[in-house]
């Protein structure tokens, strides 16, 4: 009975001092619990917790959905930094609107709508950016001596990224971009649907973008965009 000597009316003053001290200092340390478990913690409960202002539940939700939101944004915006920005914004909106979460019936649809307009306007800008720029500009650019090192670096990074793709995706990507096969040909050779081939290509491109965005010390965005978007001589 560790407490016994302290509990007498005479010691109340000291005791409650201790208690207050305990509340002030030690209460904050009671959060060392394990991360919220996977399948045991479903979307509905997470949303209810978040609506209550639970930050851990929010972090868990981001863990669960960021790949989906980011991957979607990246496929359409074709820019990893932009997709990251949109992803962050979508989840910040979720947090800001958390009090309405308990009324959200279709959370996936909710996420889609939060990102939709930004993704479309980004995509629209990207089309303008890319339009009018012909590979010939790039060719001239490549021939400038001080640019050659940069191109080489980017080239190596792209090849490294391709090597890091999951096996089937790597195969599909190489067949398309290096061997120059059409989607129909790839589809027949690998006995997968044309739509699957297309998905592999989009996700392969996204993967390379993310890879370079997160691996490059110096990022030559414009350059590799040409490589990836315009099927230049590299492939």
């Amino acid at each position, binding site marked *: 009975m560790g*407490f016994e000597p302290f509990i007498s009316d005479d010691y109340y003053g*000291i005791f409650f001092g201790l208690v*207050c001290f305990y509340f002030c200092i030690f209460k904050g340390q009671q959060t060392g619990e394990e991360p919220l478990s996977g399948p045991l913690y479903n979307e509905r409960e997470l949303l209810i917790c978040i609506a*209550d202002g639970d930050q851990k539940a929010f972090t868990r939700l981001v863990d669960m959905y960021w790949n989906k939101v980011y*991957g979607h944004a990246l496929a359409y915006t074709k820019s990893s930094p932009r997709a990251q920005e949109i992803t962050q914004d979508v989840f910040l909106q979720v947090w800001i609107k958390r009090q309405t979460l308990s009324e959200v019936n279709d959370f996936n649809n909710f996420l889609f709508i939060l990102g939709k307009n930004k993704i*479309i306007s980004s*995509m*629209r800008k990207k089309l303008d950016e*890319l339009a009018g720029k*012909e590979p010939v500009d790039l060719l001239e650019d490549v021939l400038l001596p001080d640019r050659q090192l940069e191109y080489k670096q980017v080239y190596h990074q792209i090849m490294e990224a391709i090597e890091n793709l999951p096996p089937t995706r790597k195969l599909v990507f190489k067949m398309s971009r290096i061997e120059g096969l059409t989607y129909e040909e790839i589809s027949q050779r690998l006995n997968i649907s044309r739509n699957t081939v297309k998905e592999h290509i989009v996700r392969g491109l996204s993967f390379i973008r993310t890879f370079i965005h997160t691996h490059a010390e110096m990022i030559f965005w414009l350059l590799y965009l040409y490589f990836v978007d315009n099927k230049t001589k590299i492939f």
Partner: protein
Amino acid sequence: MNDETLKELLEQYLTGTITSSSKKELAGLMDQPEYREKLELLMKETFMAESYVNEGNEKLHTEIQEWLGEKIAGDDRTKIIELQSTVAKRSSLIWYRRWQSVAAAAVIILVVGVLLYKWQNNRKDFSPREAPSVAQSDANAPGKYKAKLKLADGSVIILDSAISGKLAQQGNVDVINQNGRLIYQRSHSDKSEVLYNAVFTSNGETYAMILSDGTKVWLNAQSSIDFPNSFAGDERKVEITGEAYFEVEHNPTKPFHVTVNGMDVQVLGTRFNINAYGDEPNMTTTLLEGKVKVTKDDATGFLSPGSQAIITGKNNLKILNNVNTDQVVAWKEGFFNFDQTELKEFLRQIARWYDVEIVYQSEIPDRRLFGIMNRNSSLNSALAALKANNIKFHLERKKLIVTQ
């Protein structure tokens, strides 16, 4: 121009095979509301089908979480400040004077260290607290280690810390009382029938027990547990009323179920507390360790350590995280622990432990209490909290009459 063109152009754009002229064409289409809507539908399809879901990237994942964490932390700090000021306004309580206590804390920091260390050591200790001293055996003494055991044949045995040894045999299980706890221990007898026993506590009583599977149960005052002498079949099931704390022996092949007032708590092996007193507005299940599933009618919730399921009325299940679990299970450690506790709830706890009836002759103000008190303290020292809050009351034998 038709929908197929849009689809075709979009596919070329996404796969990076679009030509310059097609880019202009696609951009032109996007500027028309009609096609923009169609584009949105196509986008939604791929989002819902998770066609382009990213395959993970730790660096990016961390960056996104950190960015959000910063944004949200700012949000939270303002909230905490708001909360503190409302708390400060609400609690005119003597018990809690932050600045005085911080000053005091500086002096007694060492004592706290020793105290917490001892407390931590005590927590694992299953042996009950010493029985309250006999000197306090007036009408308003605190509760005791006492309970009633009802055997399968209907006979009742009074349990307290004074009796020791084998009380009965139930099937192939020996029922032993030792140091104020009840132990169900498998014996070598081959009578393997399943018999149901029950342990009850009244107001002012508490008891601890070990079931035949090794699960430890602490019963608070005015509570009960119904359980079999040994757990046959593929489930372990007990039923309780009032408040109980469980340390369930891990056995993944035999889930442990606690039923209380239509709520089912399913666990494999874990530590948790259930408070289901009829006079409390909510039924709460608080998890300290492991995982539990709480079901009430159609509502189901899963708890992680430090979270609490609150059931209010029918089918209304809410889960709170980061609850003060020390406060929730303080009773089994021999303490009252009040943290923003409403005066009425404080009085309900007092009523159960000191076996007094609370009579309200007037509305009492909405006050919140903070503080820890040993459950061996006398009723009078507990009621000091009321005096400190200028609540007028008097005791008439077993009645605590609150007049203002």
